[in-house]
């Protein structure tokens, strides 16, 4: 399988690693090695076993079979403390943050700086600020972490791992929710660490990142390591190794004929968060919203859907005004929202796949208070198959699905809801290339049937590839609007960073179509 030369100094090597869970073989013989000062990318479909592999290196799981060698000595890593002693630090796919605590408290969880036996608050804040500056994230050490939003939580996780001064840094999909700007900052840090001799295991579903940051790639398929190739391997080849077939077109957008406006947002304002946001989404349209982290995109989406309130402005669905702050009314009117934070807002982790997939349609599937369970099961099975959710059955607890498969469940339950206007916030976070195409196809069929999609994504190629129109937000305002034809990486980024000097969006959009 792997064809590395034994001679080269290795910091870490695993052989024939196996791990089973009730009903699932998660890893079925994985070989993998890591050299000092390299970035080793782990690639594989959702559920291929990437996270399971790294959890055995971080002491979260014990392998059923196989060997782990650190510095050429066979080792067993039984706990997080063991891993820390060996110099292994891990950034998990699902964050390890305590939402109620502050940023600083989270950064130094379990090991706060002490003075006379008491927590030295001042030093903790100062150290936290230094760490935050290092990763370049705009967050206040005293801020409660739950209020940060997914992207900045990710950056805090990265800062936390950096503070451990590890020899081996494992990063499980750190870029899944970051925009280009943050990704670049992260890459600069990673390169710097690599040059200092730190070894990095890097998991990503964004193939274009691999040649930028990686040295070698190990491909996992169905729990087996199937190849080890250099990072400059062409993307098509990587895809073929990963999914066993090639993918024709990553963004198969088929434009539909446009209809009347389904969603109208007029002068939406929440003081201090977003201001005077106005736009329309027409039937048959996919409208993307781009912007930097913290631009207020998620906040606007939640306000439209009634998840949060707003101070001024109106939301109209098919011409009818929507009551603010009322999710149920928004749903009745035909809105849907796939939230960015699947763990906090999207899923009932302790419930099974069927239950989660049926949550949005539960009301509709109930007659006289009784749930049509056969119908719910049939629909759940259908969408799970369509999205290729890798599971042992509809009864599997969602908590035990892989990250990408959890995300498919969040999307799936809303695809079943048949919303007239579906708002997607980071819809493909952590989803592999093959399944993404399937989701895009489903977006196409939504718009073809006269529905509309409003898509927020930090993945700019995705926004550009799938949107008919791109709105760009900066610092809580709409900075501009670009037609699909004129929207490019550069034009969008120019708007996103320029911000809004004049207060009205239109001036900054040189020549683009404005409402």
């Amino acid at each position: 399988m792997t064809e590395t030369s034994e001679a080269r100094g290795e910091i870490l090597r695993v052989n024939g690693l196996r791990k089973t869970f009730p009903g699932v073989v998660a890893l079925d013989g994985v070989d993998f090695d890591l050299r000092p000062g390299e970035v080793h990318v782990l690639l594989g479909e959702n559920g291929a076993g990437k996270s399971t592999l790294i959890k055995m290196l971080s002491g979260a799981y014990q392998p059923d079979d196989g060997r782990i060698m650190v510095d050429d000595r066979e080792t067993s890593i039984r706990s997080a403390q063991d891993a820390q002693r060996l110099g292994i630090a891990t950034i998990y796919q699902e964050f390890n943050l305590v939402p109620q605590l502050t940023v600083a408290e989270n950064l130094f969880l379990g090991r706060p700086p002490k003075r006379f036996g008491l927590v030295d608050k001042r030093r903790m804040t100062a150290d936290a600020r230094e760490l935050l500056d290092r990763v370049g994230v705009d967050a206040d050490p005293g801020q409660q972490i739950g209020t940060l939003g997914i992207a900045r939580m990710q950056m805090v996780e990265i800062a936390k791992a950096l503070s451990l001064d590890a020899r081996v840094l494992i990063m499980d999909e750190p870029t899944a929710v970051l925009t280009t700007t943050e990704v670049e900052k992260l890459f600069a840090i990673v390169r710097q660490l690599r040059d200092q001799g730190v070894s990095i295991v890097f998991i990503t579903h964004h193939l274009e990142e691999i040649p930028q940051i990686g040295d070698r790639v190990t491909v996992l398929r169905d729990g087996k390591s199937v190849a080890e190739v250099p990072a400059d391997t062409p993307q098509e080849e990587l895809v073929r190794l990963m999914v066993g077939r090639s993918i024709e077109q990553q963004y198969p957008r088929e434009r539909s004929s446009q209809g009347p406006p389904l969603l109208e947002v007029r002068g939406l304002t929440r003081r201090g968060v977003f201001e005077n946001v106005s736009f329309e989404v027409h039937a048959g349209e996919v409208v993307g919203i781009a912007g930097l982290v913290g631009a207020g995109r998620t906040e606007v989406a939640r306000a439209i859907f009634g998840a949060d309130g707003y101070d001024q402005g109106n939301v109209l669905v098919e011409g009818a005004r929507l009551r603010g702050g009322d999710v149920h009314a928004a749903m009745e009117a035909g809105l849907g929202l796939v939230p960015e934070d699947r763990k906090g807002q999207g899923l009932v982790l302790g419930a099974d796949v069927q239950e989660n997939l049926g949550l949005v349609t539960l009301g509709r599937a109930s007659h006289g208070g009784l749930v049509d369970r056969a119908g719910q099961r049939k629909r759940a099975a259908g969408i799970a198959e369509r999205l290729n959710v890798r599971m042992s059955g509809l009864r599997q607890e969602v908590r035990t699905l892989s990250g990408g498969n959890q995300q498919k469940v969040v999307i799936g339950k809303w695809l079943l809801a048949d919303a007239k206007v579906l708002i997607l916030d980071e819809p493909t976070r952590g989803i592999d290339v093959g399944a993404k195409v399937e989701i895009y196809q489903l977006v196409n069929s939504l718009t073809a049937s006269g529905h509309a999609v409003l898509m927020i994504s930090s993945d700019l190629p995705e926004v550009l590839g799938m949107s008919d129109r791109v709105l760009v937000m900066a610092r809580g305002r709409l900075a501009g609007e670009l037609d699909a034809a004129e929207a490019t990486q550069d034009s969008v980024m120019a708007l996103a960073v320029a911000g809004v000097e004049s207060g009205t969006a239109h001036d900054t959009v040189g020549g683009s179509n404005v409402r």
Partner: protein
Amino acid sequence: MSADTLQKQAGPSERNGAVRAASRFFAENGALGGLVILVVALSLMSGSFLTVTNLLNVGVQAAVTAILAFGVTFVITTAGIDLSVGAVAALSAVVCAWSATSEGLPWPLALVVALGVGILCGLVNGALITYGKLPPFIATLAMQGVARGLALVISQGSPIALPNSISHLGDTISSYLPVPVIVMVAMGLVTAFVLARTYSGRAMYAIGGNEEAARLSGIKVTRQKLITYALAGGFAAVAGIVLASRLASATPEAASGYELDAIAAVVIGGASLSGGKGTAFGTFVGALILAMLRNGLNLLSVSSFWQQVVIGVVIALAVLLDTLRRRSTN
């Protein structure tokens, strides 16, 4: 387990569904194993345990706790807690007896009024928790005081005799079918049905599992919580009437402390106080375990002081085992 895990998956793709359902059944029902062990141990230790009379006795003893616990199951499934059920049971029973005797209401009407009182108490709990944003612990603790106080006020502190027609509810039909046991089983089936089959039941699991996700999925969380606490109140009223009919009189101090037994039964039955888990069957088993333990300790003439110690230890053990099992599967 909810009734739906028992149900076999249809479809040929789920061939081993039955096997999986069976193993899941036992994995999720540690309490059932405990019950079996308890029965075996007690019948070995005491000759009079495994007799029809005694088992019927256990059933009757379990009935009130079980009915209260069924109601509490709804609440705990939504990650709430209800400390008022014992007091609400007493209040409902007192109202029932008082309206039937002092006020001369026909007995069916008196039952309806009692049920209404229970539901009303539950609705007030729910309103305090949803609209008033009080923590469930506080809201229901307050209700405990209010309900107990009202029961004392109405009864002026002394028991009120129940009319005969109602106290028949405490009888045993043809010497093998105690009515309290029938009521318990019926309420258990209602609970299982509500949890597994109805919109409200499924919503309870979602709310308990992740309230924010439930809200963002369009579930009317406020309304569902009101329903949940109203159900607990209604079940408490039924339990109160069953208890009173066994004694042929409604006592304002009746059922005090029963809320803790009810909560213990729910938790022993595998529900999680953090919500999202809980089944009627588990609760039923939990209530049986508590009743058998009390009964067995009595048969073995263990002093009631020591009984409290033993029951405390059993509750701790049940929850401990449960958390250990959960940790090992994660």
